[in-house]
């Protein structure tokens, strides 16, 4: 038996538990409750003001959350990766630790904290809580790229007369973009799709796209739920293409 054949069990497993389920989303999205072919679920989404509105809000929150995470996380990752500014291995562990703790637990604790300080739950608290939840997922990939970066590039730029500011913007930032793009992938899509987190942080005032999918599935409206999921899959496909570009850029640079 050839050793390449060892991949067969996993290939079968992936076929059943990854490929088939995704095809089923497509199948259910294109069927009505009786199993007949229909485009009704798709057209319903585009005339469903509630779903469209939620979709727009989700995208908006996800974009704002991603930008905030980059804005707050990049400096942190940069400091953590800089040997002159941070010598301790413990600090980075402390920054990635929240990733390992149940997100629901952290979200509930955050929501309770808002309650105690009398801050009304709404869009502000939702964004704040989202940044809480996803910041480590932005810091870690950027830190990883920065820490592995060849220090001779910034040094060379410095020797050739670039100011520290220029070194940072023209050398460090471009070299760290692959880290930023995987951070974006780890923050953006999960924000659009979360369901429990937005419920808790806004007291059910703001729904995100994941909530609508969950509500439809739970109400046994599988076909419409599947159509909504299909819509999201398409968006994931598009955003993955962007990150693939990021990976190619990484290969081109190094």
């Amino acid at each position, binding site marked *: 038996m050839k050793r390449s054949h060892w991949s067969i069990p*996993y290939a079968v497993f992936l076929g059943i538990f990854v490929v088939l389920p995704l095809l089923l989303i497509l199948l259910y999205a294109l069927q009505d409750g009786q199993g007949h072919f229909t485009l009704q679920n798709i057209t319903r989404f585009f005339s469903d003001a509630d779903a469209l509105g939620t979709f727009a809000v989700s995208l908006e929150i996800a974009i704002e959350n991603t930008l905030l995470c980059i804005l707050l996380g990049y400096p942190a990752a940069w400091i953590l990766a800089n040997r002159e500014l941070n010598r301790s291995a413990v600090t980075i562990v402390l920054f990635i630790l929240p990733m390992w703790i149940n997100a629901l637990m952290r979200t509930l604790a955050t929501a309770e904290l808002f309650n105690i300080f009398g801050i009304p739950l709404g869009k502000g608290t939702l964004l704040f809580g989202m940044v809480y939840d996803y910041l480590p997922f932005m810091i870690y990939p950027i830190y990883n790229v920065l820490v592995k970066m060849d220090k001779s590039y910034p040094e060379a730029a410095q020797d050739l007369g670039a100011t520290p500011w220029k070194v940072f913007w023209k050398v460090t930032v471009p070299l760290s973009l692959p880290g930023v793009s995987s951070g974006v992938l780890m923050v953006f899509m999960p924000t659009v799709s979360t*369901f429990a987190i937005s419920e808790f942080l806004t007291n059910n005032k703001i729904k995100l796209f994941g909530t609508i999918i969950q509500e439809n599935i739970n109400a046994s409206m599988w076909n419409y739920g599947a159509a909504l999921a299909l819509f999201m899959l398409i968006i994931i496909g598009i955003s993955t293409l962007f990150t693939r570009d990021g990976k190619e850029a990484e290969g081109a640079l190094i």
Partner: protein
Amino acid sequence: MKKVIAQIYLWILMILLYAPLVFIAIFSFTESKVLGSWSGFSTQLYENLFTGRMQESASLISAVENTLLIALVSAAVSMALGTVAAIGIFNLTGRKRRALSFLNNIPMINPDVITGVSLFLLFVFLHFSQGYLSVILSHISFGTPYVVLSVLPKLQQMNPNIYEAALDLGATPGQALRKVLVPLLRPGMISGFILAFTMSLDDFAVTFFTRGTIGLETLSTFIYADARKGGLTPELRPLMTLIFLIILVLLLFINLRQAKMQKANE
């Protein structure tokens, strides 16, 4: 000066990130039913948690047991399946290798809700009754990719002749696997296992969609149901605090050991 600003920035972020966790930890030492009101120092909640003398004791403890059982079983199967798969993928070339690597990435990129819904439809479609088995199978499906990705680099670092040498010297493929390959791949297998294990512990959405209606609760679904009813079970506070401390100690231990080993290698 630069250093001071950098340290202050890190500290502010750290305080913000940890405020909710510290808050939970502080209020785990008081008996008050409502989170945030202090009714004097007490370790009653910890006692309740360990002795099971509390209102919702049975359901919380069984949720913790379910969580651990599902995480252990699915991570163990993921480790075995993923290691064998990594060896296979490593020996594949060209289009087949690219196709499998692509499929292996899907569960990691897919948001939980999509994974959950798609697996839910699978079990409905196959008339597979949902419960422990469907949840464990689902967790294997999103845990295995992490094992594959942890084991592949170890295969790339390995001298490929060692395995051939074992076969030439008369080992059966099974013996060569157990005595030569597995010891070399063990670090990757262990980190893959830990990743799959924590992914399973953390999961909420996939479990939520695939657990069916037999009343199976994991810690995540328990917390979700609890919070929707309004007000968290007070015993969750000491439980969260303990989980937090265990993870903190584990991560510090693993990372400091790695840092030490790297220094020793240098």
